[in-house]
């Protein structure tokens, strides 16, 4: 078995375990999916923190450059110099492009675990339909894995964010 296959097997065993903790399969489904959402949140937060920490200097530099050109372009416009405004605005746009795509690339740090989790669920549960307690228009009486995972992830992310802020503010107060 190759390293990659071995790793996948290990991850699969790790992620499926909470699904099997309760005797009741429905309860197991909810618990396992919630823990998966929690892992996705934590892992994303950690890698995002690494990205920001590592690129802090570069982000600050490009953001300052962008803001500076922006201020100057607005000054040119206020002074009624349209030609200078357009030329400086183009420089500001270029600086923005760099910052924008850098931040986009860095933001993937927080979202990659979500896509990986969905990928794992796709392999595990794509043929299973989960019964809903009510009939929804368009969806019907059953839903797929994404129906449960995405709202749970968003919820976990919000709660996690609140906890993080609470802990940080306590820590800073001291």
């Amino acid at each position, binding site marked *: 078995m190759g390293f*990659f296959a071995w790793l996948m097997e290990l991850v699969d065993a790790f992620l499926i375990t909470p699904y099997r903790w309760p005797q009741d399969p429905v309860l197991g489904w909810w618990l396992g999916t919630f823990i998966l959402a929690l892992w996705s949140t934590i892992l994303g937060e950690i890698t995002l923190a*690494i*990205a920001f920490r590592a*690129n802090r*200097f*570069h982000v600050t530099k490009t953001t300052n450059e*962008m803001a500076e050109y*922006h*201020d*100057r*372009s*607005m*000054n*040119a*416009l*206020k*002074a009624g*110099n349209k*030609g*200078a405004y357009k*030329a*400086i*605005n*183009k*420089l*500001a*746009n270029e600086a*923005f*492009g*760099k910052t*924008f*795509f*850098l*931040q*986009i*690339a*860095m*933001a*993937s*740090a927080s*979202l*990659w*675990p979500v*896509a*990986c*989790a*969905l*990928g*794992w669920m*796709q*392999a595990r549960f*794509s*043929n299973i*339909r989960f019964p809903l307690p009510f009939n929804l228009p*368009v*969806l019907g009486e059953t839903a*797929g894995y*994404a*129906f449960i995972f995405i*709202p749970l992830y968003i919820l976990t992310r919000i709660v996690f964010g609140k906890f993080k802020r609470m802990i940080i503010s306590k820590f800073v107060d001291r």
Partner: protein
Amino acid sequence: MKENIKWIVCLTVIIGLVALPLLMETPAFADKLSDTIQQAVGDGKIDKKAEPGFLGIPGAPGVNYILGFLWAIWVGWIFSTVGAFGGIMAGVGHITIFGLGDYAKDFGKGYPLNKLVTDSIRVSNQWLVGLSGLISSTNYYRMGRLVAPLGICLAIGGVGGSWLIPDLTAGKISLKAYIGYFGIAVLALGIILFRETTAGGQAKRKKAKEAAAAFEKQAKDGGDTKKGVKVLEGSWVMMFVALGVVVASALWANLAGGARWVAYILALAGWGLTFFIGTIRFTFFDVEFKFKAFVPMLGGIFIAALASFLGVGGGFLYVPFLTSVAGLPMFLVAGTSGLVVLVGMIVSIFSYMVGKGVPVQWGFIGAELLGIFVGSMIGPRTSKYIPDIWLKRLFVVLAFYVGIRYITKGFLGFSIVPPF
């Protein structure tokens, strides 16, 4: 309070459109994919017993996660050094590097499995782009740098354009033709980049820097980046009605199943209503800007249609449109174009995944996002050793190579640059 309500309505529409394709992804995925595989097995095109590969299709190229990850590092590096070209490179990976292009082509023009793989490649690109739009528009919304009426007018055009084009082309365009059109877009970008590297382009840049220096003092004296957008004039009611009508057209097209003419009429009605919104005026940094509502709407139709067709974000087209045609300052362009890219991508992904039942391989997108993150860490550390002009020249050469290769491969059937 009034402003909050507007945003709540906007966000509800957006979230509704985001959530639905995710919720619906599984049933459509299972049905369409298994039907297409069954048909290919029946036609003797694939061996049912072969090892499953991409999307679980028997005999399809195995999805190499490590290759996807490594290619995404390159994409992330480009994102963090030169910018926009990263999206194009992600598309190159999906078409060529992972071997999906040649595999789909083998089935022949118009064959359902060819169409399914082609559309899946498009949607994979769109997921990456849509996520970037989500992040940037959230950031700019927080900073108060979104011109909501402008974003809404662009979105009125964009929402219609981004469902109409997939509707008219999905399944009707083979991967071969798609590659050709993708090549044209890459070549166009290459030409724009090339112009910037010529002596004329450099002279213009130098002049712009001199102009920027002349306004430095005033910037220090009066620079106040806290002044946000203040809308002075514009019919909000008409704007929301028009947006609601085009969103309804997209929903009808994707969910109603029959009577497609209703969706077409709704889209046209939404666009028609925009002409009654009139002129929108707003101030930013105490400077007044104004635009006719139908201008961004028309721009939105064209850009979203092209972006949706190519499976790219269209950010590289919105930015020059907003700066050159609308003459807006960069800070407003950034956030507004991010919002429009997001709305356009949501509707397009929705159209493919819900309307057409096109599947994506989630794990692969995950590996790519991880690679982009790693690349974004490397980029800033290497860019200081490579002058900007040389980075641009590198991408001009790449854009010309990729563009010419895809155009000739797509439209002539062979590449005139190696590998042939």
